[in-house]
């Protein structure tokens, strides 16, 4: 492993972690709203949230590019604020966020739905506010599922390729992630390096999925 290889691994882990942290509050809130509340437009929001799961990642990347590119509605705002996004590490984080958000929401939603409603009802009759119930009953009982969802989102972020290459490109030392590195080493015929990255990506993905499954398996007492 060269210093450049380690840089790719470190960069990928850092941006994937940042992406997961950034989507966590909204993802958990969205999952709770979908699991516990009925509101107008719920199914539309649900569909939009799920869309990146079924759209080709490159298409999601293109949508993001239209949105945050120089001429995009968000891009203009960002430019005025002096923030460069496209083809920077920030775009890598954005692509990872968009692609892993649906997985996080799905995981957390199932976790919330598995918490027996009776616990929340009884807590209400004991005088607890909605917020207290969420913090003291729902969240603790859903924690394992939520952590499982977060780990899955993190793993998905690490493997992200299609959307990233469209909005962030593959700029060595700046936006190259593990997945992009595997691709370009293969393209360059540097199979040894590609396999090294492949091994690292597989190990990280394995560890993440194994952790996630372990959390999901131990989620017995919420029912």
């Amino acid at each position: 492993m060269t210093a450049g290889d380690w840089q790719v691994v470190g960069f990928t882990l850092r941006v994937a972690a940042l992406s997961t942290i950034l989507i966590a509050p909204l993802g958990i809130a969205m999952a709770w709203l979908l699991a516990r509340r009925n509101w107008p437009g719920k199914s539309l929001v649900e569909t939009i949230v799920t869309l990146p799961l079924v759209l080709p990642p490159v298409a999601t990347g293109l949508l993001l590019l239209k949105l945050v590119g120089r001429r995009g509605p968000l891009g203009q705002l960002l430019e005025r604020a002096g923030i460069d996004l496209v083809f920077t590490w920030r775009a890598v984080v954005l692509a990872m966020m968009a692609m892993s958000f649906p997985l996080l929401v799905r995981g957390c939603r199932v976790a919330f739905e598995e918490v027996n409603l009776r616990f929340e009802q009884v807590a209400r009759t004991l005088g607890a506010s909605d917020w207290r119930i969420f913090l003291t009953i729902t969240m603790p009982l859903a924690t394992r599922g939520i952590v499982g969802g977060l780990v899955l989102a993190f793993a998905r972020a690490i493997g992200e390729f299609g959307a990233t290459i469209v909005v962030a490109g593959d700029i060595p030392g700046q936006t190259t992630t593990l997945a992009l590195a595997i691709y370009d080493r293969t393209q360059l015929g540097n199979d040894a390096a590609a396999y090294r990255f492949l091994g690292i990506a597989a190990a990280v993905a394995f560890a993440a999925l194994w952790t996630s499954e372990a959390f999901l398996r131990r989620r017995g007492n919420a029912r």
Partner: protein
Amino acid sequence: MKLELDDVRVPLAHFDLHVTAQLSSAATGIFGASGAGKTSLLETVAGLRPPHGGRVVLDGNVFDDRRVHVPARHRRIAYVPQDNALFPHLSVIHNIRYGANGSPIDECVRVVEIEHLLARRVTTLSGGEQKRVALARALVTSPRLLLLDEPLAGLDRPLHARILSYLQRIRDEFRVAMLYVTHDPEELAGIADETVVLEQGKIVRMGRTADVVGIRPA
């Protein structure tokens, strides 16, 4: 205690719960077959299932009306569901303290004799112990009314008399009025002075327990 249910309507999956009654006994039985709407009636009184019409009034406090719906957390009506719904991630004492809001819990613990269980995890308790913890947890809020959904269901026969004796103590020492849901007339004989019989969401009989279900109170 005086609970007025005036033309209370709650749509359920297969029929409407539609109830008018004035209940004022220390303990009132709600009797009926499975699926008659008994649990839904308790949930409505507790404020967990807003009615689509009618009035729910307890001791002069309007809880449900055309314009009013007092949320469950402001009603001070305690609810012990059939499965107890003890919070599985909390110990016995933390379950009981959940609704205490700082007030002492000793009396509630004493009346159901669970002093020795306080440090236990609720998932390690027997069925009878869980029921007693659920009762103590319900009592710490000093409820105006205690709703009991099939409190003896799933417990071994020999335990029935013991749990019933705790309920009688609660009724007499704490002076908490209760609605007691069951499909077993023998249980009512031991605790309820007055009984309402529900069928398909409607009250079909109502009166002294002995007259309604044909068994003399103990």
